[in-house]
């Protein structure tokens, strides 16, 4: 039963934060939500290595679930740190706790119901978070996420319904086709619909439209959660579905096609973006493509996807945290000479972007090696070509930002207080010290996993049954 402790903690935290929101001071609300997430993260981290617990039938308490909860809660905790306290909406922390609960539920789900509830919980709370600042771009981003979310959910449900109709069971395991039975058309159509829904949530092309706008319009914390935690949870769900054995030509074929398309379009559209968050949005589409391709290649190395998440999440968090410190809409011009003005955020941003690009000495490189090893050993040449082109394009636009960060400032402007453009009061950092902690820990994790990956690979390999 201890498997459910993190979920309980998150649920209670969310409700408490919601109740306290109108009356209590902002720091208290943030404290409660933070405590809940920290507890959830702590418990799941401690139980990471333990053998599979005997959770209820619909929720499995295995390594993957704990890893998903851990990533979700840590991302939530980190996002909480730089969630700017917009005066009107005080429910930020509560929504963050709700979203983390949803992600934890999703990564543990082995039954259609928790799977669907987790997914929708994350989407709905994200819509609410997108809208928090109540500025026009935020509202627009929220509206787009709402409509796309609805369509995605409908498609997901259709998929689940068809699978249920075909197999008669709502359990993932139930859908494993009985060997020898002819491929049931219902199963195939169900899988197609299911993939549609997942592709929306995973922001794979052509369902990705909401991601760039979301990253640009929404507050950085929400974008961080959408990019890191929800993607991690969906990736874990994909890994679970992968060994369910859904009808083969549809599942891996579609995933590979969607993945390759996202890699190409994601990287291509990010080529000359001038806004850091929008570029990160497109890059998150590309990275979802990489993960999809890894899953499609049959997961030869079990720890490939978790390691990729481990490499991608901190990088995105670091980049978005630095973006948040630069004001609501960080442009490439704001980054000029950032490295000299504030070395920590410069270094953290550089490390994050280098890890996203997959250059050596950071976790991204090892993740890239896993990617290429997986797709090469599976021998699906489409994804290899896409990955190579994607990485090449990726080098260009990631390093474009890195170069700007370390370019010397034009003389005479060194001492201008940064950010260069005056920022509305809302963007003043709430917890400067905590942000420093987030940046340092993210960079440290990236460097450690990059230089000495052995312990991480061992732990992650033990996760997948």
């Amino acid at each position: 039963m201890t498997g459910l402790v993190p979920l309980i903690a998150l649920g209670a935290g969310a409700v408490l934060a919601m109740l306290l929101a109108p009356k209590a001071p902002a720091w208290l609300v943030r404290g409660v939500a933070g405590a809940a997430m920290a507890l959830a993260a702590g418990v799941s981290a401690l139980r990471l290595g333990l053998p599979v617990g005997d959770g209820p039938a619909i929720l499995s308490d295995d390594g993957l679930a704990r890893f998903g909860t851990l990533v979700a809660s840590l991302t939530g905790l980190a996002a909480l740190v730089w969630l700017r306290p917009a005066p009107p909406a005080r429910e930020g922390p509560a929504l963050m706790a709700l979203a983390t609960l949803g992600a934890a539920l999703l990564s543990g789900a082995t039954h259609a119901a928790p799977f669907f509830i987790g997914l929708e919980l994350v989407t709905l709370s994200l819509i609410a978070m997108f809208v928090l600042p109540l500025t026009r771009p935020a509202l627009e981003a929220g509206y787009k996420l709402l409509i796309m979310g609805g369509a995605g959910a409908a498609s997901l449900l259709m998929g689940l319904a068809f699978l249920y109709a075909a197999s008669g069971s709502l359990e993932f395991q139930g859908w494993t086709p009985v060997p020898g039975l002819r491929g049931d058309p219902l199963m195939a159509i169900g899988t197609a619909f299911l993939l549609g829904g997942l592709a929306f949530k995973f922001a794979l092309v052509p369902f990705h439209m909401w991601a760039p706008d979301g990253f640009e319009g929404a507050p950085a914390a929400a974008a961080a959660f959408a990019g890191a935690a929800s993607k991690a949870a969906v990736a874990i769900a994909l890994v679970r579905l992968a060994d369910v054995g859904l009808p083969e030509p549809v599942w891996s074929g579609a995933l590979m096609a969607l993945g390759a398309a996202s890699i190409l379009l994601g990287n291509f559209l990010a080529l000359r973006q001038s806004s850091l968050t929008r570029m990160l949005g497109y890059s998150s589409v590309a990275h979802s493509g990489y993960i999809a391709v890894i899953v499609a290649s049959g997961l030869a190395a079990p720890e490939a996807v978790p390691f990729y998440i481990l490499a991608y999440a901190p990088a995105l968090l670091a980049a978005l945290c630095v973006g948040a410190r630069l004001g609501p809409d960080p442009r490439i011009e704001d980054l000029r000479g950032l490295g000299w003005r504030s070395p920590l955020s410069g270094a953290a941003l550089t490390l994050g972007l280098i890890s996203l690009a997959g250059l050596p000495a950071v976790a991204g490189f090892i993740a890239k090696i896993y990617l290429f090893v997986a797709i090469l050993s599976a021998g699906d040449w489409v994804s290899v070509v896409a990955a190579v082109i994607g990485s090449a394009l990726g080098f260009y636009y990631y390093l474009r930002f890195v170069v700007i960060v370390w370019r010397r400032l034009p003389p005479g402007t060194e001492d201008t207080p940064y950010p260069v453009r005056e920022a509305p009061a809302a963007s003043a950092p709430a917890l400067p010290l905590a942000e420093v902690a987030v940046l340092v820990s993210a960079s440290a994790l990236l460097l450690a996993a990059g230089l000495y990956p052995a312990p991480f690979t061992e732990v992650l390999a033990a996760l997948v049954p």
Partner: protein
Amino acid sequence: MTPLFLTAALVLATGLFAVGLFGLMIRRGILFQIIALEIMLTGPALAFVAAGAHHGDPGGQGMFIFVLVLAASEVALGLALYLRLGRHADVSDSDTVNLLRR
């Protein structure tokens, strides 16, 4: 619940889903888009009920209730957004809500 009847129900569900999706694309008004969204969600609801009946398993009914819950919350959020957006853009034409592009 003969298999024939099940396939008919599923076809109907897919039809509903398609109508909703089509409505989402055609109508400009945000309200109408939310309505189209609801229609889309009725598709899977029907499919679940039919599948449940076909297999004689109450799970379908349970999932149907979850779908309803989702539809309700989507509508709530949609209407709230509709009001907020009304202040900023012409709500009757969702194309004006395109500040975030390129």
